[in-house]
């Protein structure tokens, strides 16, 4: 492991006063679009091989190997689309926004590289509706890119003209799920699709489509510039490369920080985020609320794609770390998380729609002091019925809710049980359900 300094954030200094927006000319002046130039002289197959060799894994949540995903495109089916996932609605996640706020062209270069490698006709940047400012920044950056021939030109050696557009969402978390995103792109409600067919075969407008996260694509220029072997010098054998970590909640200096994969959460919090605020560390969520919670004894967890197996959470997710100090009411926090899922469930699958809503009701009554003795087991049972993909639901939202609740119950049982007990002792168990 040897972290080679900021890769993704190389144009964004630590000192907020010195940060600025890099326009096309500034981007070029700092070595921008050199990787694209290099790529255009290569064979598309060799670019894909380079990305496979780099071990780059998706930064959007699932950690799927990026190069492998690209190889799923059927050989002779055209046109092909690229959907760039800039929906970023998972609570605790703001890394993509931070990157685009200062360096939009790093994404556009990544898109142009991916588009060339995969012979893509049109790339759509699906950006969440609330990011008004970022949508304008990207529109402006795209205008510059078109002006300088980054888009609007044929991929060398083909008749395919490469286009790129911004497509704005309108306030629905579920449109971050890749097939919900495609539905939304097509002008429909963002209901995730049953798979198969997989998007690589029949995605946007029933044509082969790749979906990648903003940060995943932003890694490409550096991989092309320095090579796959260099990329692998950072991180761990199964999780190569640099990573953006967002830290929020009870820390003194919340923000986005870049480090290599595999760093300890304690290092991230103490070295970068200024330490825990208002008390001692008690719990943290490693990567957006769908991932579950890390316990008090898991402060030193290594943040990489193996975290799920090692620390009983769902995974690294978006690496948006949410820190909670020892004065936090964890039952209230779990209620917040479950309310989020209940509100954002798209309602297609009964276990998800009903399960999240009932868990919210149960947590409400526990917080209000009307928890019943059986509520702990009831929550655990509801988790079982909702989650465990693949199985009962169409997309991963239900499983995220399952993991959030399950890990809170497993790692902090007393927080819940003590509330139920106290009401029982007072003899008011059984009081009304909200």
């Amino acid at each position, binding site marked *: 492991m040897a972290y080679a300094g900021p890769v993704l954030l190389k144009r964004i200094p630590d000192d907020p006063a010195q940060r600025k927006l890099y326009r096309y000319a500034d981007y070029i002046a700092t070595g921008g679009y050199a990787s694209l130039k290099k790529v255009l002289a290569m064979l598309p197959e060799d670019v894909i091989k380079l990305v496979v060799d780099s071990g780059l894994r998706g930064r959007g949540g699932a950690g799927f190997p990026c190069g492998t995903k690209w190889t799923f495109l059927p050989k002779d089916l055209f046109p092909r689309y690229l959907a760039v996932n800039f929906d970023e609605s998972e609570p605790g*996640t703001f890394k993509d926004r931070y990157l685009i706020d200062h360096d939009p062209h790093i994404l556009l270069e990544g898109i142009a590289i991916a588009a060339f490698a995969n012979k893509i006709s049109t790339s759509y940047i699906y950006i969440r509706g609330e990011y008004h400012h970022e949508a304008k920044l990207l529109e402006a950056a795209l205008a510059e890119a078109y002006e300088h021939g980054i888009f609007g030109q044929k991929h060398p050696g083909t008749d395919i003209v490469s286009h790129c557009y911004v497509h704005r969402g309108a306030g629905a978390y579920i449109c971050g799920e890749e097939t919900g995103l495609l539905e939304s792109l097509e002008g429909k409600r963002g209901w995730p699709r049953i798979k198969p067919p997989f998007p690589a075969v029949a995605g946007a407008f029933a044509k082969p489509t790749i979906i990648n996260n903003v940060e995943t694509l932003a890694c490409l220029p550096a991989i092309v510039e320095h090579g796959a072997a260099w990329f692998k010098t950072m991180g761990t054998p199964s999780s190569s490369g640099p990573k953006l970590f967002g830290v929020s*909640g009870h820390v003194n200096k*919340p923000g986005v920080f870049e480090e290599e994969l595999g760093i300890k959460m304690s290092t991230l919090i103490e070295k970068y985020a200024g330490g825990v605020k208002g008390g001692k560390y008690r719990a943290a969520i490693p990567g957006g*609320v769908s991932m579950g919670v890390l316990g008090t004894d898991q402060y030193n967890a290594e943040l990489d794609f193996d975290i799920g197996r090692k620390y009983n959470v769902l995974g690294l997710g978006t690496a*948006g770390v949410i820190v909670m100090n020892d004065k936090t009411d964890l039952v209230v926090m779990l209620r917040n*998380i479950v309310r989020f899922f209940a509100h954002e469930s798209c309602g297609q699958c009964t276990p998800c729609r009903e399960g999240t809503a009932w868990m919210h009701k149960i947590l409400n009554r526990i917080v209000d002091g009307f928890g019943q003795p059986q509520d702990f087991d009831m929550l655990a049972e509801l988790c079982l019925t909702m989650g465990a993909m693949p199985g009962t639901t169409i997309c991963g939202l239900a499983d995220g809710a399952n993991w959030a609740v399950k890990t809170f119950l497993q790692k902090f049982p007393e927080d819940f049980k003590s509330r139920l007990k106290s009401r029982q002792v007072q003899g008011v168990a059984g009081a009304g359900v909200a």
Partner: protein
Amino acid sequence: MAWIVEDRLKAYQPARNEPYLTAKIKDEVSRKYFPRYPNKRAALLPLFHLIMHEYGYIAPQAIDEAATFLELTPSQVQDAVTFYEEFRLEKTGRYVVNVCRSISCELCGHQRVLEKMREIFGIEPGETTADDKITLLEVECLGACEQAPCALVNEDLHGRIKPAEFCSQLQQLPAAPGHSTTDDVR
């Protein structure tokens, strides 16, 4: 979300002669958005963003007009539009204050923002001040958790909110009726 049923009666509004889809809106969609997609339907979200920007809400008549324009049935348009929270079917105050209520903001005191709003403006989430100036809404994570607690006022993000300061900023905004776009806030 989609399965939270809207009260259709509340959305009732008499028809008007003047179309909601003005020539300007149609022209922008035809010129800028239709060429981007292989079919007209995909321009639905961009079209309704334009309508929201122009009117601040979506009148039922606009849905019918959009259906004709996009060559869809009104139910297809209704189906999509009602799914998205940003597409509001009711009129709001001139400034819509979307306070984030998700986890990082709750950890950093979003309740204090709501309490101050209640104290100063006398409104709860979902309500509008009597002078139609401010509508308060609670929303999920705005993707700005490092700036918690935060809120989106129309199209502008306000981060690291100090409740009293924030409310006095809102008080100083011009109170003329009608909906506003981001330009007024700046």
